[in-house]
């Protein structure tokens, strides 16, 4: 299955384009890092607050940064797919890349769960101030787990060239 996908990518015009034009790879890397900073910066604001840090800030105000998380994530998915298209033989068999993808998947599941429990909490406490430090333990732990998963994604991404 992976061999078929790899061979298909190797014969694609996109692969040829990325290989021939030397400006493409550093441009993709730059965009990938910009996406990383948008994703990680906005996550730190949201998740640290949900984890109980800076309790004087209202939760509904920090959650407004989530669209920036999504923009960063989409940027990194697009550039990440182009990295794979440009060098498919390197990525699919790389254990660090495989673990990174697992962590991205778990981080996404964790984010969906966090949004569900946060919505329930906000509906149950409608009208009440969320500047108090009384978020449920499930929300706090999930927020900490989110920071942990995305930090692991950064670590594993950085190790890709070194565990071939």
């Amino acid at each position, binding site marked *: 299955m992976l061999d078929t996908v790899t061979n298909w990518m190797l014969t694609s015009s996109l692969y040829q384009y990325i290989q021939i034009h030397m400006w493409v790879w550093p441009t993709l890397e730059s965009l990938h890092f910009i996406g990383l900073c948008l994703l990680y910066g906005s996550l730190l604001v949201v998740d640290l607050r949900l984890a109980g840090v800076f309790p*004087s800030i209202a939760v509904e105000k920090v959650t407004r*940064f989530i669209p920036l998380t999504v923009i960063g994530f989409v940027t990194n998915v697009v550039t990440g797919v182009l990295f794979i298209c440009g060098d498919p033989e390197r990525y699919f068999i790389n254990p660090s890349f495989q673990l990174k993808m697992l962590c991205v998947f778990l981080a996404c599941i964790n984010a969906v769960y966090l949004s569900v429990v946060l919505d329930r909490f906000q509906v149950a406490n409608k009208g009440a101030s969320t500047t108090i430090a009384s978020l449920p333990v499930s929300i706090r732990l999930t927020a900490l787990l989110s920071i942990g998963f995305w930090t692991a994604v950064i670590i594993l991404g*950085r190790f890709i060239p070194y565990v071939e």
Partner: protein
Amino acid sequence: MSDTLLNGLYWLEESAIGEWVATSIWGYPIFLTLHTIGMGTIVGLSLMQAFSVLLPQTYTHGIRLYAFWKIAILGLILNVISGSVLFIGSASSTWFNWPFRIKLMLILTGVILSASLTRDTMKGPVTSRQRIKATAVVVVWLSALVAGRLIAYID
């Protein structure tokens, strides 16, 4: 180029830290990873601060986002320490790399601008001067990211 400078750069490379980073299997990737986490923290939080000034209706200016500057400083410290170790490992070549020099200047400018913007946001409503500063914060930090990427591609 002075011999003293070049000798100093070689001395750094041949130091215990320099040798370890350059020759050990895990030295370079570990500090590169720490550098990336530090970068994500300082640049990411600086960008969030700037966006809260540029789009105060959306990102609610004045929500005490400046409290996160302490976390950003931790990221900066991690970045400076890991960056110094990485530099020591290849001091004689990195020092003469123009993207590296430009990156250092941009980081210095970015830190000064972000610290100043953080002080401004403690004061009150958004002013046009703060918006200009926030725009500069975004441009400078994004340029620093690009310059950092180009270190590996341009001598």
